[in-house]
């Protein structure tokens, strides 16, 4: 563990990784809390995975994959949102199809790209150790955008996630806010892809908020606690993975998952006792 702290104090890439984890935790604490209380983890998973299509196309065209991810995340957020609003009967089937279809497109484009395909792994599992100062700037900007939108429309987001029917009767354009919310999920997904990769995004998006929901009884506190837990999981995962030279993404997710399960079990005992 000592060498981890040495690395943090001396190596720029470790400092970037820590800061990246903190910035990502803000987005996943705030947006993840809505995802958990609104119970749309599957929809968010669909957005996260289908993003590979955009990354693959960008990679094929020689553009930075993250640009493709951003475009694809926003496009799929709107498509999936439309599906969940208009095709409620087949919602899960359609999400599943788009989820797998998006990934298939990505893999095909990546396979047709000449050259060395090492990047595929970092799309899928992320690499927090490769985060550059430019990346940090982008993550921070997306954080600010997300926080700004959540502050401006706090009441509407709360109303739509709590009681859609009542919100509609109070004159709130429920569908528009639902789609706006899904675009926030898309932005968060793009941030998190750089930390843990797109396969593991959904865990980091939902686990801190899910743990947090076991302890607090207000959405604001839930977001705050989830953000702190996100920082704990990313930093903890980084520290644990450093010495044995494990990939940090999966380590972070295992830390989060273990924490969640232990917390769940303790809570059950607590309530029974």
């Amino acid at each position: 563990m000592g060498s981890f702290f040495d690395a943090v104090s001396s190596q720029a890439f470790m400092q970037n990784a820590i800061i990246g984890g903190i910035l990502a935790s803000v987005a996943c604490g705030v947006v993840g809390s809505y995802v958990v209380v609104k119970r749309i983890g599957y929809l968010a998973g669909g957005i996260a995975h289908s993003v590979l299509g955009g990354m693959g196309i960008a990679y094929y065209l020689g553009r930075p994959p993250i640009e493709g991810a951003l475009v694809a995340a926003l496009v799929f957020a709107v498509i999936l949102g439309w599906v969940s609003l208009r095709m409620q009967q087949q919602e899960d089937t359609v999400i599943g199809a788009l989820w797998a279809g998006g990934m298939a497109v990505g893999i095909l484009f990546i396979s047709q790209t000449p050259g060395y395909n090492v990047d595929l792994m970092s799309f899928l599992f992320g690499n927090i150790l490769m985060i550059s100062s430019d990346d940090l700037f982008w993550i921070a900007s997306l954080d600010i955008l997300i926080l700004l939108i959540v502050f401006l429309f706090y009441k509407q987001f709360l109303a739509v996630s709590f009681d859609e029917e009542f919100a509609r009767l109070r004159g709130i354009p429920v569908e528009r806010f639902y789609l706006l919310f899904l675009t926030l999920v898309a932005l968060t997904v793009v941030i998190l892809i750089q930390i843990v990769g797109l396969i593991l995004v959904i865990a980091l998006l939902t686990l801190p908020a899910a743990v947090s929901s076991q302890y607090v009884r207000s959405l604001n506190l839930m977001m705050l606690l989830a953000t702190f837990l996100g920082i704990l999981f990313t930093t903890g995962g980084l520290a644990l993975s450093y010495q044995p030279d494990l990939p940090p993404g999966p380590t972070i997710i295992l830390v989060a998952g273990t924490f969640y399960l232990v917390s769940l079990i303790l809570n059950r005992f607590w309530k029974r006792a």
Partner: protein
Amino acid sequence: MDSVIKIRDLHFSYGGPKILENIEIDIQRNEFIGMVGPNGSGKTTLLKIIMGVLTPDAGTVEVLGKPPFQSVKEIGYMPQLTPFLRDFPINVEETVLMGRLGKTSSIGFFNKADKRAAEKAMDDVEILDLRKRAIGSLSGGQLQRVLIARALTCEPEIMILDEPTANVDMKVEKDIFDMLKQLNEKITIIVVTHDIGFISQYIHRVACINRTLICHPTSELTGETIENMYGSHVHMVHHHHEDEKNHG
């Protein structure tokens, strides 16, 4: 007379058979209307039309002199079932504040005026001491009061309550209707219920719905036989429709 809801020759279907047919009613300011009818008779559909959620196939609906979608913000609505999750992380005050939507600024947080309105509404239904409690920890009767307070915070001219006492015992039911009676001094109230015998002492008129609508003033009915008469009358309306179906 000052009518707050005016419906003329209204017809509605969800694309199939007629749900509502030839509905006509005038509801006066400060009236207390009980709405009865069997399940699937079109009560909730009619309420949704009054609140502008559904558009009728034919006929006119005016609420406070305007088309329903323009006046829906002046209506306080209490739903029949709680459509939200009881474990949602929200307390009583925050829930009641939701009623301010449409009346408050569209950006930012709730302001002082909203909080005052919520406080008054919670006071009116006597739940001010529960304001910081999580909604998941409330009893059925307390939750009904929270939902009534939420409907009240928009300072409505009309209140629509869909079976407000469906899941509470007789004592709580009486408390809630006593409270509604007081609110009725300022607000027009429409309440959907199955318990016609009980509420006849509170309401001015009863609207019997079963695809069509027939209205009866409670003053035409004498105290002791009210329960029987309403019971048999609903029955009669029901048979009337059965006959029509057979003819058609």
